[in-house]
Each structure stands twice: as structure tokens, then as C-alpha cells.
């Protein structure tokens, strides 16, 4: 095997959000995030997160705890699938954060394409509370796509 690097987590500012990308692991400087909150809000864009391990989970929980103690309102935007899986598996990772949008797996029965698509959690709040995935259109063949996981499992992070 060659030894290509796993992408370390990067933090960049974009509008009112801090955009995180790469891996949340033992090298990710999550503890720096609360100090970069603006006007009492810590807005994190997580679309670029590709990986999170148990050490990253531990630091994520600590970061959430720091933010809570500092009285910050935490908003998670465009949450990538690997982070959604952790939010579902480890309840403490949810903290008091509000998830406003997240990526979810869809598959097209017609052409077989699988895609991770962005779901607006605010606009679809009522539907999601019924564990009813919003309809999506296949970007390739324009057919209706089906949600590609168990709704009761994948949306469980929205219930607490």
C-alpha cells in the first residue's frame, strides 16, 4: 500500500459560518471553534467532513460542551453523512446544536445512481418528524429517487 495522507481538518470562514472540511480525528483542533463564534452564534458548515473517528467524537463532545458553557447557540449546516451517522450512534454528539440542513442517501430505481443529497431540515421539519423523506429527483435520468436507508434510523438524530 502507498501512504497517501488522510485530509486533516481545515477551518475557513464563509459568511456567518465556519466551514470545516477533512477528517475529524485526534488532529482536529475543534477546541478552537467556540472562540470563533460571532454574536453568540457558532455556525458550522460540515459538508466537507469526510471522516470522524471515536477520538474525533470525544473532542466534538468537548467542543459542544464548551460552547454550551459559553452560552453559544450552535447551528449545524449541510451536515455530511459521516457526521449524521455519529449523531445517530452517539447521543452526546448532538449536544444542544440545531441541525438546519443535512445530507442524506438517495438511490434511483431507474438508473441505479446513488447520491448524497441535501435536505433542508427546517423547510421539511413536519415531514421529517413523520419519518417521511422529502422527494428527490435523480440528477442523471430525472426519475424520482428513493431514500436509501431506514428513515427511523437515519433521522433519529432529529428527534432529541
Amino acid at each position, binding site marked *: *500500500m502507498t501512504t497517501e495522507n488522510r485530509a486533516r481538518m481545515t477551518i475557513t470562514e464563509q459568511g456567518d459560518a465556519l466551514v470545516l472540511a477533512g477528517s475529524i480525528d*485526534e488532529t482536529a483542533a475543534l477546541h478552537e471553534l467556540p472562540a470563533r463564534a460571532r454574536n453568540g452564534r457558532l455556525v458550522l458548515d460540515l459538508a466537507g467532513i469526510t471522516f470522524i473517528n*471515536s477520538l474525533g*467524537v470525544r473532542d466534538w*463532545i468537548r467542543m459542544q460542551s464548551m460552547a454550551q458553557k459559553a452560552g453559544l447557540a450552535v447551528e449545524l449546516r449541510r451536515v455530511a453523512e*459521516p457526521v449524521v451517522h455519529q449523531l445517530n450512534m452517539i*447521543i*452526546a454528539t448532538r449536544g444542544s446544536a440545531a441541525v438546519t440542513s443535512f445530507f442524506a442517501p438517495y438511490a434511483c430505481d431507474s438508473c441505479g445512481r446513488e447520491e448524497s443529497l441535501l435536505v433542508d431540515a427546517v423547510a421539511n421539519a413536519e415531514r421529517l418528524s413523520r419519518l417521511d423523506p422529502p422527494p428527490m429527483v435523480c440528477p442523471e435520468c430525472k426519475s424520482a429517487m428513493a431514500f436509501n436507508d431506514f428513515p427511523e434510523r437515519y433521522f433519529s438524530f432529529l428527534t432529541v
Partner: protein
Amino acid sequence: MVPASSILIVHPDRKTQRTVQRILGVTGHRIDVADDLDQAMRLVAHSQPVLVVIDGALLSEGAPEAPVMGRLVAAAKARGAEACMTLLGSSAAARIPSILDLGAVTNLLVHPMPVLAEELTVTAHKLIHGDLFGAEKYLLWGTELHEVVVSRGSQRPHIVAELAERVRGLGQSARVASMAMLVADELISNAVHNAPVDAAGNHYRRDLPRDQELELDERHQVRLRWGCDARYFAIEVTDRFGSLDRDTILLALGKNDVREDGGGAGMGISLAYRSCDHLVFNLAPSARTEIIALIDVRYPPTERMPASSYNVFVEKR
């Protein structure tokens, strides 16, 4: 010639009884069948089971049979039984927490019932013959297993990233690659930092920062093997300490949350279990620990079981 020892099946459903009986009959052992735990207790008193296979529904929280099950396992062990194996069907997700809480179920197989041949046969053969090690047992004949030896702690992220690329290169989905990454990362991290123990049993590398470089001598090196037979993607991680024990594993599997100071073997094992379809622990105490994670690549997520199987095998000396 039929051996004197037997396999005991405890399940109320006749069709499942017959299916399991047919599958396990190939081991050559006499098969005893009980409809319930009381009948099983009477059978155990007059037999020498090498294996007890129990319907998982009998072990659920609040089930009146649960206390009897504890006595049955104890009685079977006293008569020489190797392990308690539980079968679960579509109700698996709801039942697993209470089964894990029992702390006595060393082998849990989750599968649409009553078809369970592959997992049941492999598990039974391993328990009966004591031949535990190797991911080959779960893959089709001829499947190539690739091997990497981890000789420095800092190799972990690179090896895991490379593994994910190889998974994608095999045409597997991003979901499978993501699961493989997480499982490999947790198991290697566990083998490098949690497995090493000194003579007094102290885990002397457990609290070292995970981003600190560690040169691994031969004893501390960790072996990663992986392969795919178009049914399962298998990841096998082996250390040479054999310090992981059955009780720690069963406790970790039941863990569904983490404290702020979390981490450690428990958290990694718990995440690995929830990120694969079948997690197998092969333990040779004080010699080696081999953990095999199987990711089912045949089905889309919606057609897979909503819970995972596990096995804990301990080598006899």
C-alpha cells in the same frame, strides 16, 4: 459414528427448529430440540451439549424466560457447553440492547429467519473444532486477502485512507468505503494503543496522545488484512498481546453513549460494531487478539438487517 456430545436448540418455532436442525446436523453431533427454556433445562441435565442455540426473543427485557436463561447457560457451561448462541430475526434492533445487557450471550447472529446457514455453520464449526482464526473462514474460496503491517503509529491515517481508495477502486459505494475506513481506524487504533499490556496487566500505551509518533517493534506491530468476495468486505486486525477479554467486549458492545472523557477500547469497539454487519472477536489470551469486521456489500442499506451480528470466540489452551 455419532459423537456423545450434542447441540441444544431452544426455539418455539417448529420451522426454525427444523431449519437449524438441518444446518447443524452436518456437524455430526446429535441435535436436541427444546420448545422452551424449561424443557431445555431438563435436556441439559441429561446431556453434554457443546453448543446451546437460543431464540433471541426469549432473552428480551421483561421476558419471563430471562432469569431461566441465565440458569440454562450456567447449567450448560457446567456440562461442557462451548458457548451460548442467539438467533435474531427482523425484530433484532429492538431486542439487542436487552440481550447485550445480559452480558452472557457470546454469539449473536442477526439474520432474516429462518435462513441462517452461512453464519450458523461457520460459528458452529469454529466453536466445535476450536479452529478460530482467519478471515478466510467468512469469505469464498480463492478470495485474496491483502496484508499490511503497521510498524509506526503515524501510519494509521494513511493506511485507512488508502484502504478507502482501494474499496472505491473495487467499485464499492462511498457508504461501504466510509464504513471500512471507520472500522479499520478504530481497530488499528485499539490494537496499537489499547492492546499492549505489561506483566502486571497495565495498558501502558492507552493514555498516550494518539497523534504522537510510536515506533512499533515486532511485538507491538499490528497486522491488517482485508479482502472482498462480492458478498462481504472483510477487515481483519491482529495484535500480539491478546489482552482483550470477553467481558470487556460484551460491555463495549452494549455501549451506546460516550462520556466527555470517552475513547479507549470500549468506544472504538462500539463504533466498529455499529459500522459493520458482523464483528468477530477471536481471542487467544496473552497471545493474540484478532478482530474481523464484515461489511455486507450485496444489498442496499434498506435491504440489510437493521442490527449487526457478533461473535466472541476464546481459544482453549
